[in-house]
Every structure is written in C-alpha cells, then in structure tokens.
C-alpha cells in the first residue's frame, strides 16, 4: 500500500533515524555546541522569543491602548509622531495592536500543534509500537483525514462550527493530527525493530518500561522537531481563518483579522495595511528556519 499523500511538508520519513538510536553521553552538549555555531538558528530563536515576550507582556510594553479609537487620527501614516507604526482604520495605534495581536495569533498557531502533538503523537506511537490491527485502524482513520486538502478541512470544520478562537483551535488540531501521527508511527516502527529494543524485550523489562525508556526516549526528538516545523504552517492557516472572519471577532486584535479589516484602506494607507502580514510572515519564516536548524543540530533525519 503506498500512501505518499504527505501534507505540504518536504518530509521523507522513509529514512531510518539511526543516528537517533545512538544517543550517547553528552548528546545534548553536542547539540548545544552545534547550535551555538549556527547564527541563523540562534537569530530566529531570538526573534521568536522577542515576539513571544512582547505578546505576553503586552500591557507593559504597548505604548497605547489597543482598543482606543479616534475618528480624528484615522490611518495616520507609518512613522507619525506619537504613532510609530501609524494608526488603523478606526484610529487605533498599530504598534499596540500588533503587540496585542500576537497574543491571539501565537496562541491559535501554537495551541493546535501542541494538541495535535498530544493526540497524533500518542496515536502514532501506539500504532507503531503495537503494530498489527491497531496500527491498521489508526492509520486508515488518518488516511481519511489526509484525503482533504488541509486548509479546506480546517475551513470546513471552522465554518460548520462557527467563528471563534476555540473552534479555530479545534479545527486546526484536527488537521495537524494526521501528519504528526504518521511521522510518530514511522519513527516508532523503525525504533521498535532496532536490535536494542529486541534485546530489551528478551529481558524481564515490562512493556511499559520498554515503551517509556527505549521507545519514547528515541522517538520524541524527531516528533518534536517535526511538530515545530508545523508551527510555521499553523500560523499561516490560523491567521488565514481569522482573515476570513472565522477567528476572533472585532474589536479584538489579531494579525489575520487586522489584515482583513485594513484591506479596505489599501488605497489610503498601503503600508499600514501590509504590516500585520509582515508579522505573520516573520513568525512563520523564523519558525521554519529554527526548526531546520534544530533538525540538523540534533542530527535528525525526517
């Protein structure tokens, strides 16, 4: 049975993660050494950290109230006095709204990947470890979800459930579960068949212990790295849902929704209208590069 219906990811899970199996003493210090010599990854991680911290401490950092409207100061251009990044169509400070907007945008991008990691990761490891009929049932269910283009499925579910952050997170969790499950299943099957696991099985070690120590210890790394690469897809799709009006409702600040409401103003203030998208792009781009860097630092082949 071939099923090369991988989602929009350049993943080739067929290669065995042999290097993962040889986790030796000092593995993490080797990884850290490699990371330190990789300015791109460090740079991206720093940018993500700054955006995250700005979102968390938004009330302390934001220069203005993000909800305070002013009919007189509508669409002030970028760089105006008092409003560094201008104002939006209702005269609200863009910089403050972008900082606050990170809260919802990052949450709706990261929460679904974590949810999918929990559900898809568990199902995938179980399918790989138990094999046989359990594997078949779990993986065929995933195949059905895979039969939809992912954005379509997210929009279909969000559309049927109605707009809202909770519903957006549910629908996104559902579309990220199958790819994570498939990766988890592949790596677990490979690790399960390695000699040291077979050897552990010959000893009186319990199944739970084998699963915990020998399997999880070796598959978590690749699964986590794959999940981190999905965050860059997630922020684009999540902001897309809210761009369509399926996420938060106004006046809440969110990058996707801001992009939508400012779209009417492209003739008057094109730069302001493009700004929220820049934030989505920077976040996605940095997550992409960071996950690539982590992958090579941890020497994981996916």
């Amino acid at each position: 049975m071939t099923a090369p219906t991988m989602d929009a990811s350049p993943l080739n899970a067929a290669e065995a993660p042999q290097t993962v199996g040889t986790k030796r003493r000092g593995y993490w210090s080797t990884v850290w050494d490699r990371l330190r010599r990789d300015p791109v990854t460090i740079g991206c991680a720093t940018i993500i950290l700054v955006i995250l911290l700005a979102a968390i401490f938004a009330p302390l950092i934001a220069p203005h109230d993000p909800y305070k409207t002013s009919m007189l100061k509508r669409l002030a251009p970028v760089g105006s006095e008092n409003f560094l990044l201008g104002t939006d169509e209702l005269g609200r400070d863009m910089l403050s709204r972008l900082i606050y907007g990170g809260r919802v945008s990052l949450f709706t991008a990261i929460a679904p990947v974590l949810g999918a990691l929990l559900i898809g990761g568990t199902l995938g490891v179980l399918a790989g470890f138990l094999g046989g009929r359990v594997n078949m049932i779990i993986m065929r269910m995933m195949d059905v979800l895979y039969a939809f283009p992912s954005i379509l499925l997210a929009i279909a579910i969000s559309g049927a459930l109605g707009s809202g952050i909770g519903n957006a997170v549910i629908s996104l969790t559902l579309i990220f579960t199958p790819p994570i499950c498939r990766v988890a299943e592949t790596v677990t099957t490979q690790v399960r068949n390695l000699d040291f696991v077979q050897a552990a099985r010959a000893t009186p070690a319990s199944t739970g212990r084998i699963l915990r120590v020998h399997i999880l210890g070796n598959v978590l790394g690749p699964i986590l790295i794959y999940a981190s690469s999905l965050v860059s897809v997630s922020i684009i799709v999540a902001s897309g849902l809210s761009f369509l009006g399926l996420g938060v409702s106004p006046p809440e600040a969110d990058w996707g929704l801001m992009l939508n409401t400012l779209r009417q103003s492209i003739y008057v203030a094109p730069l302001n209208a493009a700004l929220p998208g820049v934030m989505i792009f920077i976040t996605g781009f940095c997550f992409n590069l960071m996950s690539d860097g982590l992958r090579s630092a941890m020497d994981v082949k996916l």
Partner: protein
Amino acid sequence: MLLYVINRLLYTIPIAVGVSIICFALVHIGPGDPLSTLLPEDAPQDVVDRLKAEYGLDKPLVIQYVLWLGKALTGDFGISIVTSRSVLGEVLPALVNSLILAIGGSIVGFFVGTLLGGLAGYFHGRPADRIFTGIAITGVSVPHYWLAIVLVIIFAVELPWLPSLGMNMSGSTEFSFSIENFRHMVLPVIALSVIPAGIVTRTVRGAVAELLNQEFVEALRAKGMSEGRIVRHVAKNAAPQVLAVMGLQMGYLLGGSILIETVFAWPGTGLLLNNAIFSRDIPLLQGTILVLALIFVALNLLVDVAQVTLDPRIKR
C-alpha cells in the same frame, strides 16, 4: 502493474466513504438545528415537524446518511438554502473557475520551482544553493493571502497596471479566453504559485543533489559524457517524484483557494464556500467540500498510478 492499479482503486473506496461521512457530519457538528437558518425562531412546532419530515431530519442519523449518500451518488447534493438553486448547479461553474486558477498557479509554481531547485541541487552546498533555498523557505513561509494584498497594492494601486479584483469588467462569472480575463488572472495566479514554487524547489533540490551523488552519474562523467546530457539523465530520474509533488500541490491549490479567491473576489469554489459559511448555507457548504475532497482523492489516485507507471521501482 494492473494488479497495483486495481489494489489502489479498491483502497480508494473506504477513503471516499470516510470522506463522505465527514462531509455528512459537518451538518451535525454545527450549533443549532440544520433548519434554524430556514425558519424564523418563533415558527410553530407543527411547521418545524413537517419540514423536518420533508428533509428527512426526523430519521436516525444512519438512515439520514444513507439517504443523503444515495442522492449524492446520483449528483443530487440538495438545494442551496440561499439561492434556492441546485448545489451542483452552483458548484460546477465555480469549479471551472477555480481549476483555471489552480492550473495556472501549478504551472508557474512548477517552472519556477524546477528552475530554482535544479540550480540549488546542482550547486549543492555552494552560495547559489543557499540563496535559492532561502527563496524556497520564503515561499513556503509567506502568507499567500497577504502576498495577494501586497501584489494588489503594488500592481493595482501604486502602479495601475493590472485589475485588482473580479474576473472581468462586466461581472460575468463565465471564463473565456480573452486578454481581459488573462489580465485579471495574473495577480491571483502569482499569489497562488508561491507555495508550490517553494515546495517544488525543495523537492527538486533534494532529488537532484541526491542523484548527482549516485554512482551512475560518476560512471557517466568517467565515460566523458557532456554536462548537458548528464543533466538530462538526472532530470529523467527526478521527474516522477517532482510530478507527484506537483500533482498534490494542484489539489492543495484547488482546495485552499478560498483565501486568494476572497482577496480577488474570483468567482470560484473558494468564494462559494466563503458565502456558504457566512450565510450558513449548510447544503452548499457540504456539497462544495464533498466535490473538492473527492477531486483530491481522485487526484491522489492518479498521482500514485502515474508515479508507478513512470518509475516501477516505487511499487511496494
């Protein structure tokens, strides 16, 4: 070969059934009664009951599903609540318009991706590789709906070269091969092509770099074959994998076109879905998604079979 095709066909049946179950379930996961959009809130109970019976909503879910599927198989996806026209009659013309964009985006993405990826793979590890790989990562990280807006700002607002929305000036939703239609296509096609271009670049780069490392290339070089002919050998070997990726990307473009079609008000399935969602026209939503998903399933099947035909080594 024939056995593989038959096997693959049989495997498609349970998948298609699963897809139809999900589409059917869409009606029932939503808040409120499926009839709530049709009826005023204070509708008398006997009217509600009569309508329920008419739509078959009083029967058990399994029976409802079977009845719905039976109708869907004959092309009857129900009636759009908002326009009162048949769902299929709404979906088919929109599908043609979406396909035009998806094919355009795939072609542009394929050529750009093959060029960049081929060069990156050929110059593997050198500065050119880094530049082209960087472009590819930018392509897959860029929110394409934002890029669409930026393109409109540049080429329709600042430089009034191209139209910013619609399919033509008259507002007709029927595509014809005219200069005007092509001018309207340019920006949406470019916006759609970035993601496939990025993904094809990565695929081609990986495939070319790997192939150039293989012994047969070494042997060809040792034989004194010209670089141009070696490239042709490599291209032939990389083609099946790249075509498969591209085929799936076309499916994603078709299914994910809602954002781009919304930005450009392009009258395709995406815009149809958008309208269906916000007017809570559930039959239309369900029908559009079912049609798009089934096309995607068929495309997957086609890609698999084509790949095995082109490269029998893949068959497992």
